[in-house]
């Protein structure tokens, strides 16, 4: 019994073609089951999109990949590191290779844009940095390089809160890129942006993913964007995997149908979350 388990694990972790693997991952927050027995592999250098309603567990799943959350049960292996049992040191080492961007950018607003980008390199530096002057020159030059790449080299010395939302997200991308990551996690990167900035940011992520051969796992709300941008679409609902399709073989119509099956709210859920709205959504669909 024990022998077969180790044998299984050996093939499981040794599989080079899979850069991220989740096995029977369940995550329980008090009485909420955020993820329910999730099994999924992410192949390297592919763009994967997670679709699902608010509360379906997209963020929770993303955070398991770099160990910001640990599973209640199950296994997570990212780039060969067993995240579910990794200690602080191992996690730090893994996270150097995994960039992450967020819906609300998470920049330090009172800090200059350039220093914000430099903070992405802290994982490879020892000790705290009191200011921009304490980063090595190479790091600062790399940061300028990434800023030029996202088209914000001219804003390097401004405070981050002087930028627009789209520009802030591009700074956050530069901060992730300075890590020279193999995996890029993006948690609803354009949900807070207007359509024009959204397009800029999504194109940027797409281009960079190709140039740098990144594995991307990105949660999104918009089906069109997901379809255009991804290699694979994964649907989540109530913490469960309910869809997994290669997006190249999918038409927009099909995608919408599937998305509706995944994401349209049912009467029962409305009753649960907002009883005062019950009936409205139902009338629209029936």
């Amino acid at each position, binding site marked *: 019994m024990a022998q077969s388990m180790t044998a299984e694990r050996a093939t499981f972790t040794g599989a080079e073609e899979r850069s991220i693997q989740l096995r029977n991952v369940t995550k329980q927050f*008090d*009485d909420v089951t955020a993820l*329910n027995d999730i099994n999924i592999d992410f192949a390297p250098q592919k763009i994967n999109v997670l679709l699902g309603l608010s509360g*379906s*567990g997209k963020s929770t799943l993303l955070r398991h990949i*770099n160990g910001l959350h640990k599973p209640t049960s199950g296994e997570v292996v990212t780039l060969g590191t067993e995240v579910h049992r990794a200690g602080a040191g191992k996690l*730090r*080492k*893994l*996270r*150097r290779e995994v960039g*992450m961007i*967020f819906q*609300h*950018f*998470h*920049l*330090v607003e*009172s*800090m*200059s844009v*350039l220093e914000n980008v430099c*903070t*992405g390199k*802290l*994982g*490879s*530096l020892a*000790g*705290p*940095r*009191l200011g*921009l002057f304490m980063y090595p020159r190479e790091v*600062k*030059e790399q*940061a*300028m390089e990434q800023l*030029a790449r996202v*088209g*914000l*080299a*001219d*804003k*390097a*010395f*401004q*405070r981050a809160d002087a930028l627009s939302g789209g520009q802030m997200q591009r700074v*956050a991308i530069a*901060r*992730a890129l300075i890590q020279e990551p193999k995996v890029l*996690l993006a948690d609803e990167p354009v949900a807070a942006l207007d359509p024009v900035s959204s397009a800029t940011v999504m194109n940027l992520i797409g281009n960079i993913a190709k140039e740098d051969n990144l594995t991307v796992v990105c949660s999104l709300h918009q089906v069109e964007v997901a379809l255009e941008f991804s290699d694979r679409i994964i649907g989540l609902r*109530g913490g469960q995997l309910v869809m997994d399709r290669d997006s190249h073989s999918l038409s927009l119509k099909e995608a919408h149908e599937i998305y509706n099956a995944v994401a349209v709210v*049912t*009467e*029962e*859920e409305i009753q*649960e979350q907002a009883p005062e709205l019950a*009936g409205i959504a*139902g009338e629209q*669909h029936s």
Partner: protein
Amino acid sequence: MATLRPEAAEAPRSTSGRRPVPKRPTPSIHVIAVWGIFLTLIAGGVWSMFDLGINLFDVLVNIISGWDWITENLFPPQFPEAARLVELILTTLGIVFLATLFSVITSVPIAIFAAVNTTTGAISRQTARIIIIFCRAAPDLVFAIILIRVFGPANGALIGIVAMGLSSIGMVGKLLADNIEDVDRGPSEAIRAAGGARWQWIQSTVILQIMPQIVAHGLHRMDINLRNSVLLGFVGVPGLGQALSNAMNTRQWDLVMGYTIVITVLCILMELLSGAIRTQMMGRDSGGRRRGVLGLLERIAQNSWVHAPTDPHTAQRTPKGRVRVAPQWDAGRIQRFFGWAALITLAFLAIYDVELNWEVLMNTLGNFPDVVSRFFPPDDHGHYASRYFPALVETLQIAMASLLLGLFVALPIGAFAARNAAPTKNIATFFRCLIVACRAFPELVLAIVLVVILGFDATAGVIALAFGSIGLLAKLVADSLEESDTRVQDAVRAGGADRVQTFFSATVRQTAPATVAHILYQLDVNFRAATLLGVLGLGIGFDLLQASARSRYEILSLLIINILVVVIILELISMYVRKVVR
């Protein structure tokens, strides 16, 4: 109506845990308890007034009958020669500055351990919180007296710096811990996700985000320390306070008056300066153009040595051809540079000016455990019931009586200063200015003047602390009135009530519980200030000084424990009230 989809019926109800059954409203027994506390305070205040024999009419009579003595002895105020005066002012400012700097620098790490989102674990969090509570509870005088025994009475500057520094940690550390807990956690998480270690993300995100608050609390605390430093002068902390105490001991009343004026002016200037720095920092919005000197500097810089980068896709290069990785010397960088340079220079100048005795500091740190061990076990030598307990009660009475007196004056002032309660806007503005003036005036200095006029008597202390309470209480009352829900007032007014009826039936009722919390806070402040009045011969502070002067460590520790117990009880009550109010 919609039919249930089969897959929805199968899907686990992940959201079912999101909406817990709403809690029932807090049982009214707690509200009754708060009212009970309030009435007890009022009753306590009245009892204290009688028991201390405070009669404002007598005070008036005393002042009028003694008017000749006052004009003859206090006026015209006498000032020391200019050089001496400058020296005293610099010493006081140096000690106050270093004490504040010391407290801010130590408060930051303590606050990091005390805040739930940055602490390293339950034990370190509790330890940090206990340190903060202890520093908050112990009045400056207690620290000063312990430190006199630690450093030796000759090292007044060191005693002042460390005593005020430690007691400031209680306030600054607590406020900073609250600020840290309120900080946006997103950036910290982003750095953690990039592999940043604890101290890296704490420094790069948390400390940077609370920087404005660090400066603001430091400036605020510097005001308070300047005021407290005056009375610490009576236990040997050099500067204006000590000169004042010498003048009192030698009965040079006109000189006392002169120092009083100098200190008052200094307090007001400090208040203005810190206000100016705070607005300067708040007003630094990144979008708009800078004004004034900085704006001019910015325009000059932009037209001469600053070359703004223009190409978004290529890094700017310096004239030498390297990638530019440091900001140019624009107005913002010049301002930051000079800000830090000024801070560091001031610190060195202050250290030089107060002539810190490093040798003593190093030596005493070694025998610190020995000194501390002498404080135990506490012993009252049989005088507790006859002497120390009544002194403790007297201090508490001074605090309660001054609170009551201050409250009576503060309530109308606060009501008139609130824009939604005052008859006209101009009246509100006038009373707001009055409150600011009250707050700027150092009440402990007033206590000294009153002691000179009325003699060493609790009345002087009560009036002075009452005066000090007015400023803060009136401000709190006015603020909470302005924050009150105007819709209720509109409703009552629409029902035909006039202005006064509206005020009492809607506004007062809404803000009463919050006001009780403020009143308790003021009682806490007054009790600590009343302890400090010991230097003028009042209450338990006086016994503290006596025990210190005679090196009676065991009595000292007994008294200190007594003071701490009272402060902590007050703190617990006010914590309870704040919980009920929320």
